[in-house]
């Protein structure tokens, strides 16, 4: 893999309870990742994601999902290898482009990053309000640990390929 900017994006609405899972995970990661990793947590629209990805090397997107699994379950998707399941990453807003559509649009115009991993955290409650349900909070803890570990391994791999 060539070196390129590493970007983490947390998606969600912090006033819709578990929909904030991606945002909170990204904010937590910002405090522990290397300084050259760009972390964004103010993105809600898939169109803005495409602008962020453009030219990036390694991109991780974190979002809440509704797949029917137990709340707090984590699923990891390689978005370049297989299409993201639209039904589990559907936006709760009719005003925004969701992640699967953003990936499809970016693919159509040749604006995908070298690597695009999407982590979904299964949600329980997307009603108006602030605060994660306990199981989803556990999911956020798990995903931040996993991503931090993944990034450290990536850094080692990139250093090895440089040498």
């Amino acid at each position, binding site marked *: 893999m060539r070196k390129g900017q590493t970007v983490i994006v947390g998606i969600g609405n912090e006033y819709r309870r578990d929909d904030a899972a991606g945002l909170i995970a990204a904010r937590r990661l910002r405090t522990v990742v290397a300084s050259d990793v760009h972390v964004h947590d*103010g993105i*809600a629209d898939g*169109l803005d994601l495409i*602008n962020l990805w453009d030219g990036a090397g390694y991109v991780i997107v974190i979002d809440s999902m509704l797949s029917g699994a137990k709340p707090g379950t984590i699923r990891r998707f390689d978005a370049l290898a297989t299409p993201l399941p639209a039904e589990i990453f559907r936006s709760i807003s*009719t*005003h925004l482009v969701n992640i699967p559509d953003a990936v499809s*649009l970016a693919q*159509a*115009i*040749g604006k995908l990053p070298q690597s695009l991993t999407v982590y979904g955290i299964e949600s329980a409650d997307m009603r108006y309000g602030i605060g994660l349900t306990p199981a989803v909070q556990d999911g956020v803890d798990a995903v931040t640990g996993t991503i931090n570990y993944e990034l450290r391994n990536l850094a080692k791999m990139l250093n090895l390929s440089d040498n």
Partner: protein
Amino acid sequence: MKSKSIKVDFLARVEGEGGLHLKIKGNRVTEARLNIFEPPRFFEAFLRGRNFTEVPDITARICGICPIAYQMSSCHALEQACGVTVDGQLRELRRLIYCGEWIESHALHIYFLHAPDFLGYQDVLEMAKDHGELVTKALRLKKIGNELMTLLGGREIHPINVRVGGFYKVPTKAELKRMIEPLEWALEASLETVKLTSTLSFPEFERNYEFVALRHPDEYPLCEGRIVSNKGLDIAIEEYPRHFEEQHVAHSTSLHSVLKERGEYFVGPLARYSLNFDKLPKPAQEAALTAGLGKTCTNPFKSIIVRAVELVFACHEALRIINAYTMPSHPAVTVTPKVGTGHGCSEAPRGSLYHRYTITDDGSITAATIIPPTSQNQKVIERDLKEFAATRLDLPEEKLTWECEQAIRNYDPCISCSCHFLKLKIDRE
């Protein structure tokens, strides 16, 4: 006589949730309704009791695409109530952040929401497969608009740097100069957008509209001016309640706005353009005339060209402001509340946005009225639908439905902005 209905439950490629319903009897359209069923959002109600300083931050939440419009209309209304004028470089910075919003909103609408109609695609994803370069251009235009809003507003969604009296922090000249190169690109891209949109095919459809917009003696309007129309209206902003009123209709959670004397009216780019062509900068005027537009435009389908002309204006104006900028010594003027009512009107990307607030001497809001452009356009949208569909009843139903949806998209309706229900009446039996 045979009757039929055409119904679309959820309109595509509009902001928010709405539907349309046409009733056809024989060869006549007897009824055309734009059904708005987004739940009322009660902003006007819950602003009561809040402090006037909170209003720009709260009203920005009404819209993720046009938050600056809400912030500017509310700031101007509250400043009027308090007897304060924001002038000089702070006034220019307000125009600059508004230019950012026009750029991102118009680019989004032209390329992502409306162009697919004209180019024969279901949506922008289908369009991107054949016209990737257009979508790439649109994304970059949107990004530049967002960057300008972030630079001046702190972030592009619900900006946090705007306050009554000005801003919390103002940029340095160096910070603004970094936007010159992207805006110069955006200006060229906007001129190309005018050329592109001028080559599209447009239905022959024109009506004798009453256009309403702000008009200012010195500039293309954004935040200030008088409210004028092409049928004789020429009033100060504070006279708005005497000439306009809101009506509740059963099929819409969004109130319909009318001119008391004459009924429906039309706000937005076509109205602004037709009432203010002489105030556009020369490059925008020349681009418009070369594109085949006159100094007025009454074909709503050509709103896509007019939006492109307004993109040229916004980029040109942004560059003008940045090149002339000197950093003000203070980010805001002092605003002391006093008892009174203030009115504000600014030109959101979709049209005139009117705010009115009454405050006490400690700055508490006791009454709030917010009238968005999409509320004001509902009657004209429904009449357009009725008259447009009437000329096309021989089309297959699928094509007629598609063209009616396209007719609604001419207005770039912001449906979730338009739901501001003040009164909630509960009847219990």
